[in-house]
């Protein structure tokens, strides 16, 4: 086992990062905040997968790479595997984590979560609460997109949390069904 830190450290950084981007920097432009948070995740995924795949042969197809994400990669991040993996065999995969760690500890109580934001928007509507939670999903989506992109598999990643604390991650490869050789970064 490599070096470790308390889980509260990473939780604190992620919560503050999301809060800073959503409230302080791009309070009125949630789509910009989302893009920045996703970009941070992308960077992290890109670097992490590099480290975790350093000593293994290249993946021969999409499925093998996705299985690696579901098992080895997820274990490094969350000490568990993805609970369910489904595909429609037409370029879409759905990864389900029944108890997604980063959502179990996120508070959506406006009184504690958004002390500063409350100055601008004293009342959080239910829609806003959903938005606050969904803002926390751009980071893990970015991580997966960054990781797969580094393996030469560009895809779109979105998350579905209609069944909290379960989280479904949809990976969409579009028409890109043939596994391409490792591509140069764009």
């Amino acid at each position, binding site marked *: 086992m*490599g*070096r*470790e*830190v*308390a*889980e*509260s*450290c*990473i939780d*604190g*950084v*992620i*919560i*503050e*990062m999301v*809060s*800073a981007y959503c409230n*302080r*920097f791009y309070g009125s432009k949630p789509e910009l905040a989302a893009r*920045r948070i996703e*970009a*941070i*995740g992308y*960077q*992290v995924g890109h*670097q*992490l997968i590099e*480290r975790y795949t350093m000593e293994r042969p290249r993946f021969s197809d999409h499925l093998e790479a996705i299985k690696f994400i579901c098992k080895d990669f997820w274990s*490094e*991040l969350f*000490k568990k595997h993805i609970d369910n993996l489904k595909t429609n065999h037409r370029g879409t995969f759905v990864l389900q984590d029944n108890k997604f760690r980063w959502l179990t500890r996120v508070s959506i109580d406006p009184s504690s979560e958004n*002390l500063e934001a409350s100055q601008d928007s004293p009342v959080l509507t239910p829609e806003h609460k959903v938005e606050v939670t969904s803002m926390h999903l751009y980071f893990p989506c970015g991580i997966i997109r960054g990781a797969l992109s580094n393996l030469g598999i560009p895809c779109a990643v979105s998350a579905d949390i209609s069944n909290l604390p379960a989280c479904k991650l949809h990976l969409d490869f579009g028409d890109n069904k043939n596994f391409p050789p490792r591509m140069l970064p764009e």
Partner: protein
Amino acid sequence: MAPLAPKTGDAVFASIDRVNAELFTLTYGAMVRQLLTDLEEVDEVNKQLDQMGYNIGIRLIDEFLAKSNVSRCVDFKETADVIAKVGFKMFLGVAAAVTNWDAEGTSFSLVLEDNPLVDFVELPDTCQGLHYCNILSGVIRGALEMVSMKTEVTWVRDMLHGDDAYELRVKLLKQVPEEYPYKDDE
């Protein structure tokens, strides 16, 4: 009921939930990088990191008190030792050293030789004014404020700028008398 005996930093660190430090380090690094891009001014990045740390600190103190069983410190000297030996150890997995007390006993230095925040980090020349670990000073300031101590926390030495260790100066500005939120008859 007799108060529970305070635990050592090692004991608390061994018993709490921990994560892979790479994830934490890379997440923090990717965030700082994105902040530099978005905020442009290094001073503004320092300010935001400090603010994030402060927000984390005011929450982290609860976890710290609950898990360490540390009770009221008799003086600022004890506070310093507790931060260095228990606080740093239980969250970051590394203890700090306390040195350079001033004559009045109101300011001291925390010295870190090993710092998980900076694994893999190198600063480009354009970041000379950046206090990369500024989140740490914010955490200490925020946490101490929650236990009635107003402090000022500044960087003295920084290995990313070529020094031989990380040194944080903690200066006690004033002890805020505790206010009890409840009246006797409630």
